[in-house]
């Protein structure tokens, strides 16, 4: 079953990637760089899920539970990309973006480490990861927010929506972590795999689609306002 979930996840990610890749045709060429982030995220996930399904990189934790390291590799790459997209959309300073990217990476790394070790150290690392994640949220709500307020209303709306989307969905990850075999063990590996796969697909593809639709409307408006400003 475990592998089934991973394959399903890979298929869903692949479909999402293709659908989002089609978005290149809709997005104006000057936005392609930023838009490519949205496509890269599920594309990376496709690879990660195929590897997961092939049971590559399955480690045994100190508690003897299987630890799917590919998942963390995926997250280590994709979550900072999401934060980057958010930062670029908001037009935040490079410093703020870089700091939030580092914090995001740290969150994943601490989570991975916490999953691996046992005893109080696990929870210490979990707390460290949580702090790092709070840092990311902090940047999203302060520096990014300040930056985006100078933008037009639709960009602000899109930013708010994506930020709420990420924060709410990403808050589910640590909750799953807590009940997963790495944490309290209330949820078994299979169920956790199912839930995480679903959550991943929703978070990655959903984010992409919301951003795409938002970007389409902002481009329209942006073009209009630019011409109007000129």
């Amino acid at each position, binding site marked *: 079953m475990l592998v089934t979930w991973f394959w399903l996840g890979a298929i869903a990610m692949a479909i999402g990637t293709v659908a989002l890749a089609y978005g290149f045709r809709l997005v104006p060429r000057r936005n392609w760089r930023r838009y490519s982030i949205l496509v890269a995220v599920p594309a990376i996930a496709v690879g990660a899920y195929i590897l997961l399904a092939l049971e590559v990189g399955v480690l045994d934790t100190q508690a003897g539970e299987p630890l799917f390291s590919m998942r963390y590799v995926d997250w280590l790459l994709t979550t900072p990309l999401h934060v980057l997209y958010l930062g670029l959309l908001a037009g935040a300073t490079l410093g703020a973006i870089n700091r939030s990217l580092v914090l995001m990476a740290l969150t994943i790394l601490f989570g991975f480490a916490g999953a691996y070790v046992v005893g109080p150290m696990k929870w210490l690392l979990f707390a460290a990861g949580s702090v790092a994640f709070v840092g990311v949220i902090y940047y999203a709500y302060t520096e990014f927010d300040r930056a985006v307020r100078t933008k037009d209303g639709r960009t602000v709306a899109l930013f708010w*929506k994506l930020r709420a989307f990420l924060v709410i*969905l990403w808050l589910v990850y640590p909750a799953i972590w807590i009940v997963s075999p790495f944490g309290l063990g209330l949820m078994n590996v*299979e169920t956790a795999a199912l839930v995480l796969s679903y959550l991943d697909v929703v978070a990655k593809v959903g984010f992409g689609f919301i951003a795409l639709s938002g970007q389409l409307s902002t481009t329209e408006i942006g073009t209009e306002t630019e011409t109007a400003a000129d």
Partner: protein
Amino acid sequence: MTDRNRSLLPGIIERSYAARLGMALAFAIVVMVVFGLVISMQASATLEEDVEQELTSATQSEAAALDSWLLQVDRSVSATATTEVMVNGEIGAIQDRLTSLAERDQLPENVVGAHYIDTETGTIAASSDESIGTNEEIEIAGFAEMMTETDEHETLITEPVNIGDSDQQVIAAISPVDADGEHAVMYTADLQAQVNQSTLSREETETAITNTDGEYLAHPNQSLVGSSSSIGELRESYDGTATLLDDSDETLVTVAGLEQMDWRVVSTTDSATAFALSDQINSNLIGLLFLAVINLGLVGVTVGANTITSLRRLSGRAEEMAAGDLEVDLESSRTDEIGALYSSFDRMRTSLREQITTAEKAREEAEAASQEAQQARQEAIKEQEATAEVNEELQRKAEEYRSVLSAAARGDFTGRVSPDSSNQSMQAIGEEINTTLDALEETIAMTKSFTADVKQASEAAESNARAVRSASESVRKSTAEIRADATTQREQLEQAAAQMQSLSATAEEVASSAEEVAETSTQASEAGETGRKAAEKAIAEMKAIESETDDTVEEITTLAEDLQAIGNIVDLITEIVDQTNMLALNASIEAARADASGDGFAVVADEIKNLAEETRDAAADIESRIERIQNQASETVKTMESTSDRVSSGTETVEDAIDSLEQILKLAEEVDGGMQEIDTATGEQARTAQDVMMVIDELNDLSQETESETERVADAAAEQTESIDSVADAAGDLNDSAVALVELLEQFTVNGDSHAIEKTIQVTGGEQ
């Protein structure tokens, strides 16, 4: 909820849609988590209870199975011990028998060997197990004690022991052979194998047998057999029924007692595996919760965030609109209620624009009005100033007017106000003052000149009065003379009046006589007129008779002619009668010739002859009568002609009478006219006399009046003389008054005064 004041929600949630949505979703999640937990706990409890019950009953059934197995072994060994072969005690046969039992599988399950043993020596005399062989001494630990303990006829089952050299621990079931009591049949059974065979013996469960001391008699782990169980409570807490003794986190231990032996079946299960299903269910439940949470989060973020951003954007736009910017973008791609809200706002904005336009117009109007008011106020101030100026000017004017008027009051009418003023009333007053002063001045001037005139006149009057006095004196004298003349005239007039009286009486008498004559002549004239008319009438009658007579003569002549014609006709008739008579004669001749057939014819001819004779007679009669009539007619004509002649002469006579009568009439009329003239003349004479008399009377009266009048004139002249004196005096007084007035008027100064007065004075002075 709708009532803000009574809301149960905290303010922060009340104020934010996101918080509300988050609250609702969080509530949903909490409810799901709580119910998930409850379901999980219930399921776990049920599952665990099931597992425990299953374990308990499994252990119990395991114990029962062991019991029945042991009973089977017991019975089997007893049966074998009582067989004839055993009782006979012949080793060979027993050996065969045991072997065949084993070979033919007539031993109960897991009985590994059947042995014939010598109870006294404790050796195996015969055995199904070839390896053990016969007479081999076997060591059975505590065998002797076991043997002593057991009843001679009952089967003894031992705890696991090692038989011989075998490592395998088996339990031994020993049943004595009845015959001598020195031998017994012993089955050896593999307890462990039997236990392992049990239904309970699954992968996850260890089934072990202990004795009451807790020593393991059988255990999957061979090495533990003989050792004491680690489960300490076994001895104390076991109450004789199958019980779950231990449900620690790791293991579940169940114990059940055996009936055949004083042993216990102890099954130990790993709780993780035992509760795996429960855990799986819980795990799935949690997974489900997470999926629900994720989906709710998605709904919250997509729907909620869309709604919130739309609403915030709209609220922002509304704020901008509230701040006055009506040009905000109110486009929305949404077509749901939010989109409707946007379009509603759009419509509201349109309506706002209209209202603002109206309001601005109103404000502009208000501003214009206030400007007007300001202007009006300034104008009012200006006007006030102007009024002040006007007031000053009025005051000035009033002062000026006052000085001029007081000068006038002092008698100086030469002063004039300058009426030019911005105030029309003041100007009018000024003009009026000037006019008044002019009028006054003129009046004074006029008064002055009038006074001078009066003075002059009074002086003249005085002198005239004196002249009149002398005149009236002479009048008085003249009147006395007139009086005397008047008296004489009256007397003469009275005489004339008397003479005229008699003349008048005579004229009246003549008049009455003339009247009588006139009357008589009038009667004559009337009678003549009547005669003339009668004569004329007679002439007319006569002429009528004459013409009638002529007519009659004519008619008679005509009649004579007619008679002549009739005579001719009668002649003709007579001729015809003669001829007829001739015819009749001829006819009678013919008739006579005709003879008999002519008789009728002769009759007719006779008749005709008769008729013709009668007709000749009648015609002769007519002829004679006509002659008579002709004679009478010529006589009548002659009479007529003589009558006519007489009438003609009568007419001539009457015409002569008429001429006479007319002559008379003419004369009478002439008389009448003369009489009328006489009458008129006498009437006129009488009237004239009357008139003369009246004139004389009047003259008389007049002369009387003249007389008295003359007297009165004389009196009046006397009175006049006196009056004239008083008039002269009054004129003198008037002159004095006029002089005084002139002096008084000297006080008033008027333009052109001096020369007017001077003139007056000069005039006055000149006369004097």
